[in-house]
């Protein structure tokens, strides 16, 4: 009887792990398997840093009993000798969609956008779905589990990868033999977020990155308000969000900049997200480190570009070439900086590509210990499951890998992947290594045969004298099947045979080309040797290009520094009452304009001979959309809650190009898709700094409003959003400001109120703390806007575009509004029919502070020329014209105490021109911000040569990659979008 039970146990031990003890059993007798399995003589990685050179791993009931060199093996143990082999904890992927059904893309809903939510009882925005549960969509996927186990994974954490708030995940052991009762380790493993809308929902808000950020902020604030019982209605989304508050919070950011954006949202709400990165974290590693977040890092490094066609090379930017070269260093750089991260298969075509990419990361310097941590202990820690997974410590699940050696060596074979004590054979552990050189005897004729490649998947080469013959080999369960053909494939010899214990020679059945069956023998002459020695590889460490600031073609090798500079003998355009000063010296010190005069002594300053040259304050563009990742949140007709400061792109080439045109500051405005747009970012073009480094300290607060055709959506066939007429535009403003007033009153009176970011911003306007830059064209709407403002007791700070400003310049002056306008644009739409290039001159003469702006990525490069047009059109003096791009926009932006003119004590934002800044013949030779030179012709010239050289070097490397048979991708040009007001 005992024997029988034992036999049954043996049979069952690999199929049923932990019997569900309270389940009735009707298929036979109910049994328990209390046997142990002992893996002896193995090198055991209990953790990446706790290694037992020769020890025993003891498991029972799917869990680790112990792992040490001194285990006493219980008698009821199955003993497996793993001499020379290694045991590792199996891998964990924190970011998977394994087994969880993903939503399908909603088919297009026609031309009209959807503004209303599609659900009742949930949050007002369809993309907020914290109530989603991955467990509800979970169905174990046997096929995919097998692929994952083959890649070394034992546990994956899966969720519905859709929407901005995505609900909870499910932690799954990839146990092929158990049931979901075994596999589900946690049905609420984490709560997930992203910046991407649901593909299954059509609600148009948020249409932009900044909208997604604003929505997340409001969602958290609403959740807090809801949790205090303030809501009179039920919101299942907010309830779920609150209920999941104590889970691990994971944010899908997928880009270095978005990593930081996500972290900011977290900081504001007392949450430390674990962040799914984008693989480009190395480019801004200091800021990434400062988040203190743990990261989940994809390793889908790009393939080299196929640029064998020289005409195609031009399309691939240095930035993209460099990223190909640098991306594999991302894990190394993260490790070097002490950032905790796990690695994921996310973004890979298949988990089967995982090892190749992982090996690349190691080749590029990722320490093996860190690699192992990133696949075991760190993901376990991220999930708060360190006691259960990620190590071979007592009590943890028996999830482990058995390998032929170092798991991060390309020649190592993964034999088995055990999950919860259940074995999956990846490559038979008993496979005999038959690789080597043989003398093959076929009917007395001798052939040279070499078997090489992987142990379990060998390849073959058969030679007749020196001639290679067509040959094939298959090897399975220690049986091999081979064939080769002589006489140009005319005659095929087929062989099959089993390996023999104790002999290196091969023999077996031989079928001759004529069908006769006989025997073959192959005598081993030489053992197999790996071709490449490890030492050679180390010597061949890949060359990695240095990271630049920013990491694009014209970036700096290191961030530039402020200098003390003396400009001698310049013609100085002060933009002040002093006018234009000839033969004047200007001293720049500590980032400020320290002194203006004649014969100034240099002291320690770097002297620039400016004889014959003109020095001016840097140009300020009151209306720009460069350096932005998004420009319009068009999902609502009012979006005061969104911030351009959230979407500054410090790597945009427009920054460099603008510096080359003498521009030092600009207002990055929201677009004109809605009457109440988003808040501005006011920037200094500090090329090389990260996004927040470009934003003014103590920045004045601005917001974009817009009137006319764009907000009516006149020119793109949209008919469902209010307002559709200028009449409606007025009513929208009246309504919003009235509500803001009521909101603010409640707040000021200490009455309870629901925090509403949008209302907060509008209240700032009412309280004179935030200024409006209003996109406007025709006189009726300009007049209306001023009347609305006057009704609520505030002032419109700036009308931008304002092409019919000349018709109501007197009213504008009386109201106290300023103007930022185009020099000569018109005729591009109906509302600019009466736009005239004399507009700026008329407004200026009527006492309206007037600036010339660009709203255009190309025109911003030559605003000096645009200013000069006010001389042609309307007879401005040179000084008045120049003020239109310097002190006037500074005044409009409330920055005239800091920038916009050459005046002692102001920021040293200056430009040295080759001649009069108003002449088409002059160019900016040097552009400084706060004493730091961000552009100069000499450096630019050097950069051109450097770019040429580096491109060439990378092209050579990529061509080598291709000729070496590596995978490549087609050439392409990744362009950043150039925005205008109307870009959606």
């Amino acid at each position, binding site marked *: 009887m005992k024997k029988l039970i034992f036999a049954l146990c043996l049979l069952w031990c690999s199929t049923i792990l932990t019997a569900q003890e309270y389940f009735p059993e009707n298929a036979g007798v109910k049994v328990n398997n209390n046997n142990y399995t002992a893996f002896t003589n193995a090198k055991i990685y209990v953790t990446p840093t706790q290694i037992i050179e020769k020890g025993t791993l003891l498991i029972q009931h799917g869990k680790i009993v112990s792992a040490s060199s001194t285990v006493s093996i219980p008698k009821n143990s199955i003993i497996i000798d793993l001499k020379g082999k290694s045991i590792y904890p199996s891998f964990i992927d924190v970011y998977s969609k394994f087994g969880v059904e993903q939503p399908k893309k909603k088919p297009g809903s026609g031309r009209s956008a959807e503004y209303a939510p599609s659900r009742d009882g949930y949050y007002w925005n369809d993309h907020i779905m914290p109530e989603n549960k991955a467990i509800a969509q979970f169905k174990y996927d046997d096929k995919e589990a097998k692929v994952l186990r083959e890649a070394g994974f034992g546990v994956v954490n899966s969720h519905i990868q859709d929407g901005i708030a995505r609900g909870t995940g499910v932690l799954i052991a990839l146990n092929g033999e158990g049931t979901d009762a075994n596999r589900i380790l946690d049905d609420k493993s984490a709560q997930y977020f992203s910046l991407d809308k649901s593909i299954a929902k059509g609600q148009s808000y948020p249409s932009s990155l900044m909208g997604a950020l604003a929505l997340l902020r409001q969602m958290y604030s609403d959740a807090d308000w809801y949790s205090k019982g303030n809501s009179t209605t039920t919101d299942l989304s907010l309830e779920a969000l609150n209920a999941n508050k104590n889970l691990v919070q994971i944010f899908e950011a997928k880009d270095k900049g978005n990593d930081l954006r996500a972290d900011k949202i977290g900081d504001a709400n007392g949450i430390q997200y674990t962040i799914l990165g984008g693989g480009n974290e190395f480019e801004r590693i200091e800021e990434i480190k400062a988040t203190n977040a743990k990261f989940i890092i994809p390793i889908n490094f790009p393939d080299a570009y196929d640029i064998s066609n020289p*005409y*195609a090379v031009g399309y691939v930017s240095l930035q993209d070439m460099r990223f190909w070269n640098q991306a594999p260093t991302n894990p190394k750089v993260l490790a070097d900086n002490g950032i905790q991260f796990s690695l994921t298969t996310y973004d890979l075509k298949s988990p089967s590509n995982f090892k190749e990419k992982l090996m690349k990361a190691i080749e590029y310097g990722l320490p093996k210990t860190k690699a192992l941590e990133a696949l075991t202990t760190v993901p376990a820690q991220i999930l708060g499951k360190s006691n259960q997974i990620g190590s071979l410590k007592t009590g943890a699940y028996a999830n482990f890998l058995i390998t032929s050696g170092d798991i991060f060596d390309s020649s190592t074979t993964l034999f088995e992947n055990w999950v919860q004590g259940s074995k999956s054979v990846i490559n038979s552990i008993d496979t005999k290594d038959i690789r080597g050189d043989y003398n093959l005897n076929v009917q007395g004729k001798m052939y040279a045969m070499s078997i090489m490649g992987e142990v379990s998947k060998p390849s073959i080469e058969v030679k007749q004298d020196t001639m290679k013959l067509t040959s094939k080999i298959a090897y399975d369960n220690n049986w091999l099947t081979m064939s080769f053909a002589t006489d140009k494939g005319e005659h095929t010899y087929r062989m099959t045979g089993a390996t023999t214990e104790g002999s290196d020679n091969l023999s077996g059945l031989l079928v001759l080309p004529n069908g006769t069956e006989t025997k073959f023998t192959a005598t081993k002459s030489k053992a197999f040797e790996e071709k490449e020695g490890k030492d050679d590889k180390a010597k061949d460490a890949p060359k990695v290009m240095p990271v630049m600031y920013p990491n694009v073609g014209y970036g700096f090798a290191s961030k530039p520094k402020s200098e003390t500079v003396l400009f001698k003998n310049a013609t100085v355009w002060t933009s002040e009452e002093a006018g234009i000063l000839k033969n004047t010296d200007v001293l720049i010190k500590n980032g400020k304009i320290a002194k203006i005069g004649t014969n100034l002594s240099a002291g320690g300053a770097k002297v620039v001979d400016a004889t014959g040259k003109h020095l001016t304050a840097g140009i300020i563009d009151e209306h720009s959309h460069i350096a932005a990742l998004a420009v319009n949140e068009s999902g609502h007709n009012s979006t005061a809650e969104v911030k351009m400061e959230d979407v500054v792109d410090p790597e945009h080439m427009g920054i460099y190009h603008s510096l080359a045109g003498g521009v030092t500051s600009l207002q990055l405005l929201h677009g004109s898709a809605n009457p109440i747009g988003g808040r501005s970012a006011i920037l200094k073009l500090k090329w090389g700094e990260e996004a927040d480094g470009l934003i003014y300290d103590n920045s004045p607060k601005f917001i974009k409003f817009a009137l006319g055709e764009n907000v009516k959506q006149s020119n793109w066939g949209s008919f469902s959003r209010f307002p559709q007429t200028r009449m409606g535009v007025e009513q929208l403003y009246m309504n919003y400001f009235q509500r803001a007033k009521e909101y603010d009153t409640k707040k000021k009176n200490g009455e309870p109120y629901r925090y509403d970011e949008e209302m907060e911003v509008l209240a700032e306007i009412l309280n004179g703390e935030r200024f409006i830059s209003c996109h406007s064209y025709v006189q009726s709407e300009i007049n209306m806007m001023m009347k609305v403002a006057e009704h609520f007791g505030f002032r419109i700070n700036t009308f931008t575009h304002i092409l019919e400003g000349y018709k109501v310049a007197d009213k504008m002056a009386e109201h106290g509004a300023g103007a930022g306008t185009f020099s000569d644009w018109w005729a591009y739409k109906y509302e600019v029919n009466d736009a005239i290039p004399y507009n700026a001159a008329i407004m200026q003469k*009527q006492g309206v502070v007037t600036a010339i702006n660009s709203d255009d990525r190309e025109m911003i*490069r*030559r605003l000096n020329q645009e200013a000069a047009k006010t001389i042609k059109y309307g007879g401005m003096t040179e000084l008045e014209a120049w003020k239109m791009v310097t002190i006037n926009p500074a005044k409009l932006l409330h920055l005239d105490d800091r920038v916009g003119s050459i005046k002692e004590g102001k920021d040293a934002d200056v430009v040295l021109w080759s001649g009069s800044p*108003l*002449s088409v013949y002059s160019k900016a030779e040097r552009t400084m911000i706060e004493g730091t030179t961000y552009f100069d012709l000499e450096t630019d010239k050097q950069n051109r040569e450097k770019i040429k050289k580096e491109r060439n070097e990378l092209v050579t490397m990529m061509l080598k990659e291709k000729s070496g048979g590596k995978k490549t991708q087609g050439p392409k040009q990744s362009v950043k979008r150039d925005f205008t007001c109307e870009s959606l």
Partner: protein
Amino acid sequence: MRSITKFKTTKMKKYITLLIACGLVLQTMAQQTPAPKQTEAITIEGATAHLGNGEVIESSLIMFEDGKLTFVGDSKMKIARKGKVIDATGKHVYPGFIAPAKTLGLIEIDAVRATKDEDELGDFIPHVRSLIAYNAESKVVESMRPNGVLIAQIAPTGGRISGTSSIVQFDAWNWEDAAIKVDDGVHLNWPNTFRQGRWWAGEERGYQPNKDYGEQTQAVVTFFKNAAAYGKSTSKEVNPAFAAMKGIFDGSQKLYVHADGEKEIIDAINTLKANGTKEIVLIGGYHAYKIPEFLKSNNIPVLVQYTHNLPVYDDDDYDLPYKLPKLLVDAGLMVAIQNSDAENFQTRNLPFYAGQVVQQGLDKEVAVQLLTGNTAKILGIDDLYGTLENGKSATLFISEGDALDMAGNQLTHAFIDGRSVSLETHQTELWKRYLGKYEGE
């Protein structure tokens, strides 16, 4: 227009409506009345004359009669000053600037579909002619003149072969009067080896290889072969598209091919030459500076893209668009500037594009040629236009200062075929009206 305001006071409501309607029409359609034929000789004395052929006369004497220049020389010349004398001492005289490949008069307001007539349906439609749709009374067209732009080639856009262009002057009652050269050339958009990602279909933005390039170029070859074969047939059945290509094969019309990339330019010119095209002009030519020898040996003039452009590739020199025309001139090519990609109103900035090239070191008089003499030569109107020479059309203007620089470009006079054209526009009228409002005029 003021009189209409007066009428508004009438109490007859019917009329008010009607008159307001008329007012609107007048307001949007108002155009300067074309100048009458030159009847009196005109002499311009003392100006710096930029002849448009690379030469400059510091103090010049220019005379014209019946629309033709009768004397262009030095003011020291002791000959009789004929007719009305304009003292232009300290001022500058230029031949009227010429804008190639524009849709001026075909589009009035870009965003209003009803005002657009530049792009007809169809891929190969050389029989579609721009001239008959040209609106001689366009407010955008008249706004060219105060900046010295007096002539343009009006070309259809879109498709592979967009249609046939004509050359017009900017002071006319109708398109017939405006025409300088009817159906001067056919415009072909060469396919691109790269195409923009279809982002709306989930592709990345930016450029990727165009897999259809071979097929698209073959379509061009097929069309040319068919058109050439058709020309030899005796059939009475008319194929208007093939028929419209006749001038391309006999050299009486030019083929304007729009191409920017190195490979595209080489393919275009080799293919077109091999298929019987006699006169080829390259439009665009962003990469033309890389293959000057090829262009020279094939005798291809270039209507190069204007300077108000961004570098196409991030690693390009920031000033490549600024210096591109100079690079081509320096390489010995026949070059003029066009801004076909820009909105029409921008064409009044043509002089400043040339100024921008001077900023990059090009000789000023050569820069003037890029808008005048060279343009006329390339467009095939140099028998009468483009330079200030005896016997040529008196199409010229006087500027207070350097017309290539914004502050200097202040026109006092402009003449087209000797006719003194108005420098007023819808825009100057509004300017003056509102100056009046504020200054009590």
